[in-house]
Each structure stands twice: as structure tokens, then as C-alpha cells.
């Protein structure tokens, strides 16, 4: 619609100015009665593209960072949720949060060591791991700091859903069940925690409960059908469905089984949540129920009164999304949105609400409920319960404010 509108107005301009529109003019100036040039000649040779990339007209669809990082290797890149459809994040747009850059790892030299409280300490090459039965599962991954800056009110005025919620992606992950690998090594009595360690320059470590390892944990080597991207842990990462991003250790090189948590830096000084009484919550793994409207959203406002599809994403680390309600009047009234199936556990769920815009102001909100009955909280309720120092796991209802002209901005 908007493109047609632009084309019509340009043609009108040319006609008023008496400019002759010929076949030789650029595509933007072409008469609509003309056959477009791409129909009149052969396109790019098919065999020129061994690995495809998006159309050159989609260059604005890219990962972005919130701000220039102090150290370029300890930084994050956010997924452009406002530009994506469905639930799957293309591999080149999956969010990144690295603490020591992206290592270049030769898969033939990469090994996974499994030791500690096991009957048989084992060393696996990638070819060994690929001999195990494989599983493929679609799950979201969310950084525990996603939307965290919003709490502190540090976003710029032109922040988009990419800046507020873009540390969130979703992919089909393929790999080996961690329970199978642990069975191969044999857990000894008393095994309760597993230290997972990365092979990057941060050698990042997190302690994972054995119960999670035996439940649905995957040692993933593929993402959306192809091998992991380097920035996602190539050639091997831990994948813990529903758990905060940093626990899904990338470039996984070691699993050490113990009888207690190892108290690493990332589970003590970082990724813990300080409560108002001065006590901090530790091992706060599961990402809580959350949703956000991706369109309309800042930078994706409305131009034409009438039909508008309000759409977005909902997810919960506790299981399936059961319900998403949408408000266009700032929470005064709510309507149930339709949920795209299949609704998978610990996975993004796309929701849609047909809506008619009269041209006036609006205030968009979405509110998700998961299968445990947990309802996404309001910002006020969340901040009241957690106090001023709680940064991670921010899952409050997000408000987008739309002005009468259709422009949408982040609202607190």
C-alpha cells in the first residue's frame, strides 16, 4: 500500500511537470503501464549464488547494538524483531551476546571433555557426538538482560522494539540429548550440578542443575538446518530450553559433574538479582512469561486509517503460551489475540489481532499468559515487587504510544 501511494504521487508530479516518462527511465520513474525491466531480460545466473543472501532492497534489516561498546568483543547485537514475520529468526539475525568476541574454532580440533563425578571420563570429537541419536527442537533464546535497560529508563527517544526486546531470537536447534551423553559417561551418586565451560577467551562457565541436564538439555551443533553460526557457538553449544541465554554456554568444551554449584563469576557477581532487602537471588534460570507487539511499533507506525493487523510475539520459559490479550487503549480494555499454531513449549508464539484504526491516538499493549497460569505483569507491579536494583529477567507489559498521525513511540 505505501509503495503504491508513493508511486502514484511521483507519477502525478512528473505529469504536472510535463516530464516524459519513457521505458529508458529508472524503475522508480517507470510508467505503470510499462512492463518492468526485470521481466524483459534474464536475471542473475542461478549458479552465481552458492550461498544466498537477502535481497539488496532489505539492507535495513540488520542486527544493531544499543550503544557503541567500550570493548568491541564484550558486546551485544540485537535482532530486528520489527522486520521479522512468523517465529523463526534467520541465522544471520540471531541476537549475539559475547564476552570475549567470537572465536574461530576448527571443528576437527574441537573436543568436549566430560569428567568429574562420572564412571568413565570421556573425550568426544564432533564426529563422535554426531553418531548419537539426534533431536531437533524449536525454542526461543532470550538474554537475561533483555529489556533490562528499559527498566532503568536509559533508552533513547527513537528506541525501537529491536532495542527494547531484541536480545530475543528463536531457532530450530539440532543436536544430541545431553542425557544420552551423560549416560555414556555414567553419573556417579551425588551428581547434582554440572559445570559447563566455553572455549572462547572468556572461558565462560555456568553451573547447571543435573535435573535440567537430564530433562530437555541439548548439545546443539545445528541451527535452522545448518551448522551453528560462529557467533552462536560453532561447533557446539549447550542449549537449555527456557533458561536465560548465558547459561546456554557456547563453544562448549567441557562438562564437569559435581555435587554442588561451582560459584562462577557469571552466577555470583553477574546474572544474579538484588532484591530490596539487600539479598540477591541466585540461579534464576527460567525466563518468565513475556510478550511484545512488533507491529505497530516504534518506526513501524500507521499511515492509513482502516484495517490494521496488530501482531507480536509471546513466550515463556515455563512452557506453552495459552493466551495473549491486546489493548489499544493503554490497558483500559483487552481483546484476545489469535495465536498461530503449532503452539510449542518454550518457543515463540506469534499472535495477531485484526483492528480498525480511526486515525486517532492509541496505546498498544500485549499481555501473555502461559500454561502454568502465570500472567505477564504490569511495569508498576514488577518494579514494586523487585525494587530498584533488580536488572535481569524484566518481563513487564510493554506500551507503545501512537500519535494521531500514526507515529509510534516507546512509552513508559
Amino acid at each position, binding site marked *: 500500500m505505501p509503495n503504491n501511494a508513493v508511486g502514484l504521487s511521483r507519477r502525478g508530479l512528473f505529469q504536472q511537470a510535463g516530464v516524459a516518462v519513457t521505458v529508458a527511465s529508472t524503475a522508480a520513474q517507470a510508467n505503470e503501464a510499462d512492463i518492468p525491466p526485470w521481466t524483459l531480460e534474464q536475471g542473475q545466473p542461478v549458479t552465481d549464488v552458492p550461498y544466498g543472501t537477502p535481497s539488496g532492497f532489505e539492507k535495513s534489516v540488520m542486527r544493531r547494538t544499543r550503544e557503541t561498546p567500550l570493548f568491541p568483543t564484550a558486546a551485544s547485537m540485537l535482532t530486528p524483531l520489527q522486520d521479522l514475520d512468523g517465529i523463526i529468526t534467520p541465522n544471520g539475525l540471531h541476537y549475539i551476546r559475547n564476552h570475549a568476541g567470537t572465536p574461530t574454532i576448527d571443528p576437527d580440533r574441537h573436543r568436549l571433555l566430560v569428567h568429574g563425578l562420572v564412571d568413565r571420563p570421556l573425550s568426544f570429537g564432533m564426529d563422535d557426538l554426531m553418531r548419537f541419536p539426534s533431536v531437533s527442537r524449536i525454542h526461543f533464546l532470550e538474554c537475561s538482560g533483555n529489556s533490562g535497560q528499559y527498566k532503568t529508563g536509559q533508552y533513547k527517544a527513537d528506541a525501537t522494539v529491536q532495542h527494547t526486546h531484541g536480545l530475543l531470537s528463536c531457532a530450530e536447534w539440532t543436536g544430541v540429548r545431553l542425557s544420552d551423553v551423560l549416560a*555414556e559417561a555414567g553419573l556417579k551418586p551425588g551428581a547434582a550440578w554440572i559445570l559447563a565451560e566455553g572455549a572462547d577467551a*572468556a572461558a565462560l562457565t555456568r553451573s547447571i542443575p543435573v535435573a535440567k541436564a537430564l530433562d530437555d538439555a541439548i548439545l546443539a551443533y545445528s541451527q535452522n538446518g545448518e551448522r551453528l553460526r560462529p557467533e552462536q557457538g560453532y561447533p557446539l553449544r549447550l542449549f537449555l530450553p527456557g533458561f536465560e541465554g548465558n547459561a546456554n554456554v557456547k563453544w562448549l568444551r567441557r562438562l564437569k559433574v559435581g555435587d*554442588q554449584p561451582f560459584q562462577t563469576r557469571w552466577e555470583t557477581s553477574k546474572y544474579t538479582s538484588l532484591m530490596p532487602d539487600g539479598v540477591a*537471588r541466585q540461579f534464576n534460570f527460567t525466563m518468565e512469561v513475556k510478550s511484545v507487539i512488533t507491529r505497530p511499533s516504534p518506526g513501524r507506525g500507521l499511515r492509513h486509517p482502516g484495517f490494521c493487523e496488530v501482531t507480536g510475539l509471546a513466550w515463556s520459559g515455563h512452557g506453552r503460551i495459552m493466551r495473549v490479550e491486546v489493548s489499544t487503549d493503554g490497558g483500559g480494555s483487552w481483546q484476545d489475540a489469535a495465536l498461530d499454531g503449532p503452539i510449542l513449549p518454550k518457543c515463540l508464539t506469534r499472535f495477531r489481532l485484526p483492528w480498525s484504526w480511526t486515525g486517532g491516538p492509541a496505546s498498544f499493549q500485549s499481555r501473555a499468559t502461559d500454561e502454568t497460569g502465570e500472567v505477564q505483569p504490569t511495569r508498576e507491579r514488577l518494579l514494586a515487587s523487585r525494587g530498584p*536494583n533488580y536488572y535481569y529477567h524484566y518481563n513487564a507489559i510493554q506500551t507503545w504510544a501512537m500519535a494521531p498521525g500514526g507515529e509510534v513511540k516507546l512509552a513508559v
Partner: protein
Amino acid sequence: MQFNLLLLAVLGLAVTPAMAEPPHGGFGRPATPAEIAVADIDVRADGAGAPPGRGSVAEGEALYASTCAACHGDKGQKPMSPALRLTGGRGTLTTPSAVLTVGSYWPYATTLFDYIRRAMPFQAPQSLSADQVYALTAYVLRLNDIVPDGTVLDADTLPKVRMPNRDGFVRNPDG
């Protein structure tokens, strides 16, 4: 599995629990002591994994000035960014603007040793000797008034350091 047991029985071999096959028929290979030793660098809160070696506050002070101060600030003062702050913040955890540092927040001294050992210095991780890591740990604890001058840390004394916020954490039901 059944077939394998049958085969072993046919061959007249004794089957004992110790010889029971892993579920998938032996993927991977036994880890060698040498490869475990080079990879097994973690130090747990109870001191398990702390390597031989020793380092003093004084040794750490010199090393800190040449290796750490550029980012973390001279004597821990004026770091490049608030996230790199190592000292201060005691008494702020119940205020609206808590300052989380080694001194105010970290519950275990072993974590400091483990993190320096695996990830610092930023431009050359895993380049320090165990002696150097003990020394830097001692110095950063000294900067926070957690240990006195003259402190020497080793595998025995490191886990005995009592951090000010040792009891400041509760475990989420997830854990």
C-alpha cells in the same frame, strides 16, 4: 545390548557390572589424565581445584599496576567504566543505587581467583601463572580491606577468606 551380552556369553567371557557397556556402544574415547589436567582449571567455592602456588599482596600490587590498572583503575580507583569497578560499594546493597563490586557483592574469594585465572588479563587470558593469580587475588582483596597487608594466599588460605557478602544470596527454586 541383549545381543552383545549373548555374544559375550557365547564367547565364554564373564560379564560383570564393571564391564557393562555404555548405552550407545562406546562413543568418544576415555579422557586421558593429561587432557583433563590441562582443561580442569575451575576452582570451586570450597577450594576444590585450587592449584599449587602462592602469592602475596605486595607481589599482586606490582602486577596489578602493570597488568590491570589500565582498565580497572590505579589501586582500583577511577576504572574505565562502572562495570569494571572492583572496589567500594559496601553498605549500598539496600539503597536505590547499589554498587556491586568484589568487596560489596561477591560471596566467594575463590570466584575471584577462578575468574582471573580463566579470563584475565582481558588482552591475554590464561597467560598468568598460579602464583600470579594468587597474588592478584590477594591484592584485590586488600584493596577492599578484606585481608590485611602481608597476606599470602594459596590453596589452603584462599577458600578460608570470608567475604563481606557471603550470606547475601538465596537460591532460586530453579537451582
